[in-house]
């Protein structure tokens, strides 16, 4: 089963190497990995997707937390978080099928970001599942190059409005 770990690390040289090295030397596989600075320049967020059972996940999390540069780890349950991924794909699109490809891009609300003589480069962001589906549908046309970013995720927000706000809403209605 896939688990997503959102890991806040100190923004220092070599931190990614420490994280990646830990996974390889403890025999854990990384399924996908995305790294970027957070709004606080002292820290970066590494979003790691791993494919392990829950006891292995506990061990990974504990070992990760031992790294001096790791500040915070949060496991994001797919049901309790929003996940997004970005994909870029160059697909064969000769004139006879080009309109079909364009339609497919429109249905998925993707964008055509580059147009060549008989190829198109399209971008799509969305849930990993949506990108999987899009990839499946593009494949028959001939995928020339394909690149996904790895997923990023944040926890879902509390839908229950605080009491004070609810009172205001009730007055308005």
């Amino acid at each position, binding site marked *: 089963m896939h688990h997503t770990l959102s890991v806040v*690390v*100190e923004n220092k*040289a*070599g931190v990614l*190497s*420490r994280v990646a*090295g830990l996974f390889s*030397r403890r025999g854990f596989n990384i399924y996908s990995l995305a790294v970027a600075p957070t709004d606080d320049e002292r820290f970066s967020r590494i979003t790691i997707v791993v494919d392990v059972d829950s*006891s292995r996940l*506990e*061990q990974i999390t*504990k*070992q990760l*937390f*031992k*790294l*001096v*540069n*790791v*500040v915070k780890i949060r496991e994001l349950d797919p049901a309790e978080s929003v996940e997004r991924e970005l994909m870029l794909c160059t697909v064969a699109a000769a004139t006879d099928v080009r309109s079909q490809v364009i339609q497919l891009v429109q249905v998925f609300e993707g964008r055509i970001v580059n147009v060549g003589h008989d190829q198109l480069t399209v971008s799509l962001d969305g849930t990993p599942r949506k990108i999987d589906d899009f990839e499946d549908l593009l494949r028959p046309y001939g995928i020339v190059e394909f690149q996904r970013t790895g997923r990023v995720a944040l926890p879902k927000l509390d839908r229950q409005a605080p009491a004070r706000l609810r009172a205001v809403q009730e007055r308005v209605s």
Partner: protein
Amino acid sequence: MQLTGAQAVIKSLEMEGVEVMFGLPGGAILPLYDPIIDSPIRHVLVRHEQGAGHMAEGYAHATGRPGVALVTSGPGATNIVTPLCDAYMDSIPMVCISGQVPYGVIGTDAFQECDTTGITMSVTKHNWLVSDAQDIPRTVKEAFHIATTGRPGPVLIDVPKDVSTSLMDWYWPETVDLPGYKPTTRGHPKMIREAARLILSSRKPVIYAGGGILRARAAEALRELAELTDIHVVTTLMARGAFPDDHDLCLGMPGMHGNYAAVTSMQKADLLIALGARFDDRVTGQLAGFAPDAKVIHVDIDPAELGKVRRPDVPIVGDCRLVIEELVRAVRSLLDSGVQAPDRSAWGSVVRGWQDSYPFAYEPPADGDGLKPQMVFEHLRDSTPDDTIVVSGVGQHQMWASQYWKFNHPYTWVNSGGLGTMGFAVPAAIGAKVGVPDRPVWAVDGDGCFQMTAQELVTASMERIPIKVAILNNAYLGMVRQWQEMFYDERYSQVYLSPDLPDYVKWAEAMGCVGLRVESPEEIQPAIDKANEIDDCLVVIDFRTDAREKVYPMVSSGASNDDIQVPPFQQRPVH
């Protein structure tokens, strides 16, 4: 005050209270060696950087203070990777400072350049590549803090040559700011109460004491807990001495070559109280068959150890000493409130039966046979004071030393447990003697181990560090020979060394030591007595031992601890 980066390193070490460092200079570390001349810190010049690392470890083992090693870039740094890994496996506090090529040429394959922080990343608790001399005091402060707190371990600071020659404004930070490093030292009160309840309801409990007891300076607390609850204690290879061997409740070493009573009592226990131990494969044997009926209380300062191998029923993250002290209080308050432990006298007599039936034993040599290695250890043990520090290499001699010595005080046993580093004994003994100069230090070593690092005898002779070395010379890589005999149909492959090549007596003499040779049982005691009389130089004794002798008991690799083999002459039905 302006200092060079190099001066700042040495001054920072002084601020940390370092009294000795072990090292060997070279190109990239040259700037750091200049201020050493003016520093009160003693520097021990080794003959190989591996020696520096093991000396730092031996010093840390014996004193509890972090060992410090100083090496140059490239080969200097790679030579100390083994000791770093050894210290990492055995949780030994150690600070290694390595020289590096100038910052600007890193990545160009410069002379004696290697990716030291990359290479040592997986064998250190943390490491740093310093890019600015201004960062040096803060980095050194962090390094000592990380090495000595939480689960102790080795750290490394890589200092490029231009960083050590550039100027910085001196300061000394009073605190460290490490947002990602906050070890938990206090156990969870609810878990401690739960543990106390479990201890008082168990019928067949065993305390499984590991090296964490020693790292946490928790030997006294352990004794209090054991005596209060009247529970037997096994001390792992890393914990020998953490509980006195002459104590009625001590069962000695568990594991592959452990005491029958220690191994079997764990197997039959209904509760294991694991204190600073990590369920190493050499202790558990086949995991599925290990202590099948036991509930587990597991105390460790490293949260990742809890559930790594065996899922505990009561996990407690915290410093062993603090947790055990709390546990003693919790047990006391339950006892005060009228809770009583079940009658354990039947269990006690079963354990005693195992102890009586299967003590460590060997058959005395027939006339004309060589020495039995066990005899050598018995004589050594009985001819040295109780507080003697015994430092061992790795292999058969290590197991016999652990089995036959009586460790009645903490920090009297120094060895390489997790990594199993042959060649550990001589340099680690030198480091231990530097740290505790007023106590006798015996290195007990195999002939294979001895040859790996014995050049450090020169270091010790030059520096007047009078250790004693007993070589158990059976002319073989003995443990490997034992496995080839037992599991490879006596097909001996590449294990024969030779009893007299090298000539160990001449070797000792060439390195400024007194060399003695013992070939027959009656020569053992006079040689040991002579060695004990010499206190102004090193003594090396070449004990010619019987290569056919095997270490027993033994749990074969991958076998269950239930299938422990006692020596052939002890084999009889268990009562």
